């Protein structure tokens, strides 16, 4: 459903890849009046040029109420979520502060904004938790079976709970919750792209999870559409299809190294305690259980089909050819060499009487 042009839009998290690109897309769209980026950090130089048309306000979510009130914002796009603790910036405590307390502040500000018509929230498919009794494919109405042990997944459950409360109190605001699968693309730098970019990739022994990815350009497109049009509700946003982890590693030409699961959990704890950015329990759970979602509702409501998981992953692989250990061409060459070897051997045998 098309809605009238939007006045001013507040985008949080513009110092990150997704936030910066979404803000730039919205600013370039003539149907939108002002675009204000709210972020406590300055954008790194690689995104700074994107934000030329975006008014930037330095401030955390606590200052959101003044910004939203001053601007008389009509739409708020909340993208400032930390998916993993950043040890340089306070670790897990700061991550929870940003995700949970930040969202609470933002929603409190939204609740008091009289002109607000639209709220677009970034969420994650981590909302489905991780359990051995889970169905293979999650639809939007699947409830998590147990509280997940990963920090990010717990934050997501809290955040979605606050949005439910907000929806009850402000029925006049169109709230769109987008549950994204992990982003991937040739130019993005996320935990997962760093993981697949290594030559040797740790996996959980005896587990080959089913994974789904979303191309970052499709994520930007979906957020853009959610701001322009009215799409109330919660949506899974993922590329159709599935790659198993082993398959993804092979397609990327990397070498998997299976590690036993308790070992990986312990290692992730150790790495975190040492103050290095590593894999959290969220990643361990994803690599044990995998996660596949149904996107029928998204495709119907948004009339947009994100590129498939395999295509999105291919785009990433194309951008990271350098680190590949075992390339497709090498495999094809090896196959040819063996077949030629057999042919030659037989020719020699036949020559003998």
């Amino acid at each position: 459903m098309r809605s009238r042009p939007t006045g001013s839009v507040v985008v949080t998290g513009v110092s990150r890849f997704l936030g910066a690109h979404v803000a730039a897309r919205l600013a370039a769209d003539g149907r939108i009046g002002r675009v204000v980026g709210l972020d406590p950090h300055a954008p790194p130089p690689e995104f700074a040029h994107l934000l030329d048309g975006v008014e930037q306000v330095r401030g955390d979510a606590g200052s959101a109420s003044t910004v939203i009130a001053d601007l008389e914002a009509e739409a708020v796009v909340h993208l400032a979520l930390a998916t993993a603790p950043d040890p340089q910036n306070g670790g897990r405590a700061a991550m929870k502060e940003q995700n949970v307390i930040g969202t609470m502040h933002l929603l409190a500000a939204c609740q008091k904004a009289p002109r607000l018509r639209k709220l677009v929230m970034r969420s994650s498919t981590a909302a489905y938790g991780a359990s051995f009794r889970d169905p293979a494919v999650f639809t939007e109405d699947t409830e998590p079976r147990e509280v997940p042990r990963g920090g990010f997944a717990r934050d997501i459950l809290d955040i979605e709970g606050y949005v439910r409360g907000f929806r009850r109190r402000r029925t006049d605001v169109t709230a769109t919750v987008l549950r994204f699968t992990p982003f991937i693309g040739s130019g993005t730098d996320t935990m997962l792209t760093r993981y697949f970019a290594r030559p040797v990739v740790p996996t959980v022994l005896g587990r080959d999870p089913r994974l789904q990815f979303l191309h970052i350009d499709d994520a930007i497109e979906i957020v853009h559409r959610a701001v322009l049009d009215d799409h109330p509700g919660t949506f899974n946003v993922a590329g159709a299809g599935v790659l198993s982890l082993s398959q993804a590693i092979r397609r990327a030409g990397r070498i998997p190294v299976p590690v036993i699961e308790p070992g990986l959990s312990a290692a992730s704890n150790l790495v975190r305690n040492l103050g290095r950015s590593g894999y959290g329990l969220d990643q361990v759970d994803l690599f044990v259980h995998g996660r596949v979602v149904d996107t029928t509702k998204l495709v119907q409501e948004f009339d947009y089909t994100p590129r498939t998981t395999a295509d999105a992953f291919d785009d990433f692989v194309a951008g990271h050819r350098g680190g590949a250990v075992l390339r497709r061409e090498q495999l094809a060459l090896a196959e040819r060499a063996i077949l030629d070897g057999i042919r030659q051997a037989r020719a020699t045998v036949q020559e003998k009487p």
Partner: protein
Amino acid sequence: MTDDQGRADRPPRKTTHKAVRRTPAQKTNGTSRTGLPAGGFTVDPPIANGSGPSSHQHNGHKPSSGPLPPAVADEPGDVWDDRVAKGLAFLRRRLAGDYEVDEFGFDAELTDKVFLPLLRLLYRDWFRTEVFGVENLPVDGPALVVGNHSGTVALDAVMLATALNDRTPNHRHLRLLGADLVFRMPIVSELARKSGGTVACNPDAERLLRGGELVGVFPEGFKGVGKQYAQRYKLQRFGRGGFVSAALRTGTPIVPAAIVGAEEIYPMLADIKPLARLLGIPYFPVTPTFPWLGPLGLLPLPSKWLIEFSPPIPTAHLTDQADDPLVVFNLADQVRETIQQTLHTLLERRPDPFGR
């Protein structure tokens, strides 16, 4: 019964005159065979089965069971060249990740090329499985195949899947629904997913059925697999009948499947409950060979297997009554009775559990 050329290459085991007369023609087919050892055996119509075991025929079929490879591959474009090339191409595709996995994790290529050929050895040569009533399965389109569960280790599920793949004209795959214990275990869980299994829950069952798949379910669960030998071929309780509501909601027919033979593979004489509790498994079996013979005790006893699919029970007219417990329980009872009765008739046809 359709015996296609690929699998009609060995003399039948039955001692009917009809079968014996067919033998020479089948042997000529054997020479033109090109594929890998086809997973087949000759199954005569069910009527022929009562003739009983006889040992001289058994020896007769062994030499022709697979064409021996030539010592030297000497013709260009011969069978072994082709096989090596295909094998290498398969290996390359696997190593490059060039294959498809569906949303449940089912890897059709790996199942067809690796799992099923291995399982066929068990199915055909070890258990000498005979299958009846394949015509009761839909050629395409969904059905819920409900079987009796037994055998301490759930080999009956994979044998049912193998039988179905082997006997259906378009080699369909049975998508098994497994207990969550299966998916808790590393390695086992991935083998289950890659071969087409998923967790037994209504959302998955309904999703598979809506996708037109054949779904296999064993409503007895651990009560069936873990029962002792004295209880053999006595169907256990069918739980809440969740499988029936899945079929009702999607309007898919239910095909009862009776499996005879699995009870004897690991005859469970006792269950060491404290040990089972310690290990977190539903039972700890003691069989005549396990744990006494160590790993050798893991070898299933070579019982004779018979699998019969009964006529489908339609549910399309009951789709709006999926939540009515009475309808669900009645239908579950009907399925249970059908399987129990088919088990009895199959057992009469097989007087000796370890006969041919």
